């Protein structure tokens, strides 16, 4: 009787809203971009180029390992080494699939999501700190633009 019953869909931006709201201290921003989804995600998907361009504190982001044994064939699980502007280093777990990029190190969480919206794209960015006192820092960063900077930088990169 239930084989043809409707099933809801959860696009990557809605999914990112849930993730950002469920982790205390994570800042979040989203916006419509008048840029086609394919163009946005092709750019973001190349994380070694896009992450240093979109996140101000990252100087380089290099993939050092790939886990190909994921249940979802569209998903990539990566390990990346990030170097900050001050020379600080961190290893990130990265979950990357169409419309979804989640990064986590011992200290930092970052994420981006995108879904087609009309002729453009709804794009979301989020970030947070995982250590004690991080929430206060995030609130300070949030007050100065926070996650919105990721969105603004993406627009600058793709629509100069």
């Amino acid at each position: 009787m239930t084989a043809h019953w409707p099933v809801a869909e959860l696009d990557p931006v809605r999914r990112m809203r849930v993730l950002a709201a469920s982790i205390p201290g994570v800042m979040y921003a989203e916006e419509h971009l008048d840029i086609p989804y394919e163009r946005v995600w092709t750019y973001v998907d190349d994380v070694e180029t896009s992450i240093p361009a979109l996140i101000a504190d990252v100087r380089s982001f290099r993939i050092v390992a790939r886990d190909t044994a994921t249940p979802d064939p569209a998903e990539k699980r990566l390990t990346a080494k990030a170097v900050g502007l001050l020379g600080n280093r961190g290893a990130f777990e990265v979950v990357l699939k169409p419309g979804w990029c989640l990064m986590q190190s011992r200290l930092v969480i970052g994420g981006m999501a995108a879904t087609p919206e009309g002729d453009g794209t709804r794009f979301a960015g989020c970030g947070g700190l995982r250590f004690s006192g991080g929430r206060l820092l995030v609130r300070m960063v949030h007050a100065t633009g926070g996650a919105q900077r990721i969105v603004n930088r993406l627009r600058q990169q793709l629509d100069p």
Partner: protein
Amino acid sequence: MAEPGATASGPPDRFAVTADLVRRAQRGDAVAVNDLLDVLTPYVTRLCGPIALQDSADAAQEALLAVFQGLRNVRDPDAFYSWVRTTTVREAVRVARRNQRQIPTELDVIPDVGSPELAADVRDVLDRLSPEHRAILVLREIEGLDEKTAADRLTISPGTAKSRLSRAKSTFRKAWTS
């Protein structure tokens, strides 16, 4: 207790994996939250679709928000899916009620089912039920709960559950046999 994506009980190791993800997600591990979303989303979207219909994407988002924001209070992983189910159905009914654009028509004025698309017919029939009727139907037909348990999940009396289910099933019977 149903496993996401299935009506039958899942294998024990699946529950152990979920319990581990819940514990890690409670500690703010974003990759665990990601993986728990992978596990729960098919289950939640399957419950929200027939209850919230055109608002099902909103309902799925609201249900998952309620689940993940309530995650820190989960103490018993064995009762986790039961709690997710109750939370999801409650949120789906709430969103469907909030966004309801029209009062459902009387159940005895179902039009003939002439569409070649069975899925569209199901949707058409569901659209003529209230969110509360759709919720009891989902708990009985998708989740396989007995009437008393379904009534408990919806915090309604067994008599009300029986009456709603009878009317909802009657609607389907009329639609299929007309």
